[in-house]
């Protein structure tokens, strides 16, 4: 989709006088003007970089170690030496938060990427072929959706012992439903368009129709869905970890740090506050970016309205 807004330029170069922008450039410009979403995106990038690259640097500068216990300095409040205080075993909370974030974020990123892949594939196939295939897939979706996710997660986490890899698979296996529905709806309308008919008429195969003609047009939905899913999966993972069904201690994740803090919160309030605050901040940022992307990528939404 191109906008035909002609930009009158004073540049001497004639070729630059009428420059039309592509759909993606337009969306990017719109998004970059959205200050709230840009801040949220920056926050996500900052947190990710901190968690993935930060730990060795922080360990060197502050002289702390993720697994070193120090029973004399337990429950130290945030301050000198330990930026965010120490936990019930005297471990430095800041560095544990970074390591925990690395695992929580990896799980969320990998699981949401995987669930998007499943959701898009199944959604495109269901809508494209229709008929029996579609009926079965829709029945399956309805079934999955009528059990509150947490129950299925509970069963799955009981059945398979929760290592990060298993958690990624479980979360992905249950997280694709929403994306699948969205993509299916989009493809249902796309496949009736004239350009698809034209491509079919010149002999394009089903595979080519799906991959080259239909898939690119679902991209904006997929990107929005990816951000929202990532946020939701962080919430779900933290909930599972909190119940003791996620990644097991001593490996830290934001969720299981909260489980541990629950037993000690009279002595160490800071142990409750920080992991939860990071979860909230991250999820909030993902949702805000998702909202911003929706505004930027949806041609129907009225641009410029807050």
């Amino acid at each position, binding site marked *: 989709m191109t906008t035909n807004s002609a930009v009158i330029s004073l540049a001497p170069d004639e070729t630059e006088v009428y420059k039309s922008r592509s759909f993606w450039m337009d969306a990017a410009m719109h998004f970059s003007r959205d200050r709230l979403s840009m801040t949220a995106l920056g926050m996500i990038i900052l947190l990710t970089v901190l968690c993935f690259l930060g730990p060795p640097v922080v360990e060197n500068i502050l002289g702390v170690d993720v697994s070193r216990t120090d029973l004399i300095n337990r429950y130290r409040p945030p301050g000198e030496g330990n930026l965010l205080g120490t936990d019930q075993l005297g471990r430095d909370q800041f560095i544990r938060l970074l390591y925990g974030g690395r695992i929580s974020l990896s799980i969320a990123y990998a699981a949401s990427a995987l669930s998007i892949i499943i959701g898009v594939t199944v959604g495109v196939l269901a809508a494209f072929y229709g008929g029996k295939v579609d009926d079965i897939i829709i029945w399956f979706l309805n*079934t999955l959706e009528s*059990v509150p996710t947490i129950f299925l997660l509970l*069963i*799955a986490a009981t059945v398979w012992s929760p290592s990060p890899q298993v958690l990624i698979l479980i979360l992905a296996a249950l997280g694709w439903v929403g994306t699948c529905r969205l993509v299916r709806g989009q493809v249902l309308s796309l496949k009736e368009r004239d350009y698809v008919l034209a491509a079919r008429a010149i002999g394009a195969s089903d595979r080519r129709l799906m991959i080259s003609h239909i898939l690119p047009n679902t991209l904006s939905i997929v990107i929005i869905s990816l951000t929202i899913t990532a946020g939701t999966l962080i919430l779900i993972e933290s*909930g599972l970890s909190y119940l003791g069904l996620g990644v097991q201690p001593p490996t830290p994740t934001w969720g299981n740090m909260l489980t541990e803090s629950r037993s000690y*919160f009279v002595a160490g309030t800071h142990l*409750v506050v920080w992991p939860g605050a990071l979860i909230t901040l991250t999820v909030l940022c993902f949702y805000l970016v998702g909202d911003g992307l929706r505004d930027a990528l949806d041609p129907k939404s009225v641009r410029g309205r807050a």
Partner: protein
Amino acid sequence: MGKYIIRRLIQSIPTLFGITIISFLLMLAAPGDPVTLITFNPTSTPEATERLRRQLGLDQPPLVQYVFWLIGNDWTQIDVDGDGTGDIYGTRQGFLRGDLGQSLQHKRSVTDLIAERVPATLQLMLTALIVGYLAGIVLGILSAVYNRQWFDQFTRVLSVFGNAIPAFWLALLLIIIFSVNLKVLPMGGMRDVTRPEVGFDIAERIRYMIMPVFVLALGIIATVSRYVRAEVIEVMGQDYIRTAYSKGLPQSKVIVVHALRNALIPVAAMLGPALGSLLGGAVIIEQVFAWPGMGRLVINGVFQRDYPLIMGAVVIGAVFYILGVLLSDILYAWIDPRIRFS
């Protein structure tokens, strides 16, 4: 209308079967043998284990086990001693007749266990649902009326936060503030078990419910207020509202009598999904506040690998959810006749 209800009821049957099949398959995939939970005893002989397996029907092929779970096995005989002839009549009534089997951990009927816990969970969920909807609708209307003013901004921030904040963390924070520091609300539980002589005291019950209900309701407030705001703003732009104004009606009357009727229709349709998220949320919140409901029962069952209990609870949870969605669809169709005929 009757036709519509019957059609929707029939539509939900395959879904329910799907749930039983999926949870049964997951159970089958579980490593280890449920029997080991009962025979966790060094003096237990292999013969005794084998007898127990037969008695529980675990030596049957998966499909037969599923059928037994579904319709019971009291019509067939079970060969306990392994001599080829049936010794006792089966003891299960099956899910379809309301028997969910025996809990391995509690050694009691799963149906009874769940039935005991359901009222507590429902009490929590329904209160949260009512509080959430009322508060959400009021906030949504005010937010639409004061569109783009500070109250509106406040509500919108609240609704974004309400969806992003982990419920269990908020619960912990509330406990720290109101129970540990201010000591005004109880940390958890449903009533004061140290003073059984007091009996039923409504004020006490409410005190115990304030925090769990608030945490559960927050998610609903967030979603409902957003929808109501958007709907009211949209409806307020329509011609019949302008007509109402031009008749000289006061704003409060225009909103309450004219606009709300149409604005609330889509909100009714959200009742089903709201029930689902409440049910999921209740599992975690009951754990945080030690609320003696179904959620706590399930989580304990999960840690004990009590498969019949987990499966029973999942299926019952799904039944509740399906019924809730059905009710909300019926309500929707009743409010908006266009739905019935599409």
